[in-house]
């Protein structure tokens, strides 16, 4: 998985049974408990609660605990938020303090 580029094409993913079709799947990669990482976590939680109305799954991955995932998922910057669903896949880097940019990245708002 190290060298396969992340597939950008819109693809149908089989949903787990019972999950609603417009569910958001987000993954936040942090490194330890630095202030930036903490603020990223709190920022995204706030945005999710405000905008996504509970239709989301947020996974927080600490790369210090699971370093091999950094290569596996092609993570360079910390913090990185990956929006896996709904497609297309997006990467948002930074402590997510710029809410406007985050919303654009999550396709919740157009520029």
């Amino acid at each position, binding site marked *: 998985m*190290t*060298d396969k*580029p*992340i597939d*950008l094409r819109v693809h149908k993913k089989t949903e787990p049974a019972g999950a609603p079709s417009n569910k958001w799947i987000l993954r936040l*990669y942090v*490194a330890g408990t630095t202030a*930036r990482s903490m603020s*990223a976590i709190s*920022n995204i939680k706030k945005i999710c609660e405000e905008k996504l109305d509970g239709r989301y799954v947020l996974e927080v991955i600490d*790369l*210090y605990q699971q*370093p*091999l995932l*950094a*290569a596996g998922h*092609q*993570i*360079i*910057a*910390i*913090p*990185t938020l990956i929006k896996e669903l709904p497609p297309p*896949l*997006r*990467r*948002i*880097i*930074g*402590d*997510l*303090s*710029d809410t406007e*940019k*985050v919303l*654009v*990245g999550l396709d919740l708002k157009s520029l």
Partner: protein
Amino acid sequence: MTKAKEHLNQKLMPEHRPQLPKALTGIDGLDIITGGGMPKARASLICGSTGTGKTLLAMEFLLKGAMRYNEPGVFMAFEESTTDLIANVNSIGFDLKGLIADKKVVVDFVYIDRDEIVEAGEYNLDALFIRLGAAIDAIGAKRVVLDTIESLFSSLPNPAVLRAELRRLFCWLKEKGVTAVITAEAGTDSLSRQGIEEYVSDCVINLRISIEDRVASRRLRIVKYRGSSHGTNEYPFVIDGEGVSLIPITSSRLEHSVSHASVSSGIQRLDTMLGGEGFFKGSVILMSGTSGTGKTTFMSHFADAACRRNERVIYFSFEESPDQIIRNMRSVGLNLEQWVKKGLLVMESRRPTQCGLDMHLILALKLIAEHAPKVVIMDPVTSFSDIANPSDVKRILMKFVDHMKSLGITTMFGSLTPSGLPSEVSAVNISSLIDSWILLRDLENNGERNRGIYILKSRGMNHSNQVREFLLSDQGVEICDVYIGAGGVATGGARLNMLAQEKASGLKLQEEIELRQFDLENKRNVLDSRIAAMRAEFAAEESSNLKMIAQEKTRRTQVSADRTAMGKVRNVDEHHTPVKAKRKSK
């Protein structure tokens, strides 16, 4: 390593006190000019434009470290995927796939798609550190390559953050104790386009491709190497199926030891002309002549003689293919094919226009280091003036000759003199490098052109000063005896003429001699017979005289006897003394 390579290393390692621990690159020439390789546990920079060979050089550093020096390595690739790298590196003869499988090398392909990324707040590149750290720890790596940091600059939106992080990264690598090599694009005003040399300034190497006369050659230069003496010139290098080769030939000092042994030229009469036994071992010989004078034949004789002594020979040909030379030499009775089959003779053909002059030198020296010959022949050396100006050719040949002499290899160069020029002008003007110079010329007179050979110079030996005629027969080169005729040396038809004349006059002389001898015989015979006649006459006279004398004697005795008898009869005293008449005195 062959003896030749070891010798090269010994001769060319610059003197230096150990100042900095270094990590060998495994590229022999590069290790020599850096004095031991890259600075250990520091970061070095390789900058160059596209296609100059940065990735391959960095990769060879990493792989040789894993294969030869037991230092596993991590290759962080920002441009090419692992599969692409495996295929590319295969072309220079390295098995990256195998090394990855053996856990000697880890390749981490970092893929960043600019279009995917949205910047929303502050960030750093910790994940990169984590990835690198994980890879290093996984195999206990001692070497790291980052190829190429340009990709980071083009993918990440904030260069200020990137620079800060890179600075942090190099410190982190230093703390980890790994020897790092970073590749970067060359800049126009600065060493690297992004100015990375500010952070990575322990060792900076610049690669470039220079194009002269439409021929490209690769060059490497050590721009800086903190804390170490290093070769500062621009060195040509090649990348071929065995990786990177760099031969740091600089003008060495004229300090080679010489041999007093001789090597035969392959033609006995030529050895005699040279003063006895041929050329000095380890000397440089030039065979020059205009087109068609037989240079290749003489050089093939030399090669043949060396092979018979069981010595290895390399024959570099720049005009004809090996098969052509072998075929042509068969017509003069030289079987070069047997030596090629035995592996004693290596024939290497290349057109001068095929690559740059420096590259020719490197390839030649590589072959020589591999094959370890005692004799090297270059036929002809003047072909190089097609691709470079005379002073460059002279410079390269000087380097080559110095190197050959330091290895004790006897070298023979062929030189084509353009027709119309005086023969002593060597087209590449290398007469000062040459120990023995043999000139082949066409001697034209009486409407014929015949082949002549002349030893222009041969340092240290008492050589002949005659122009001798030679023939190419099917037993090889035959040097003829000298015939001095009315107009100087007679050659060809004139010589045959003289030979015939001599033969005729010889016959004539012989006849005359015989005639005279016959004459003499005759006269002697006549004399003898005359003497015999006179003797006979004399004998006859003698005998008659003797007879008469005898008769007289008998008569006298007879007379005296008769008288006595008569006296007796007359009663005369026998002892009658005659009365002396006394004189009466008055």
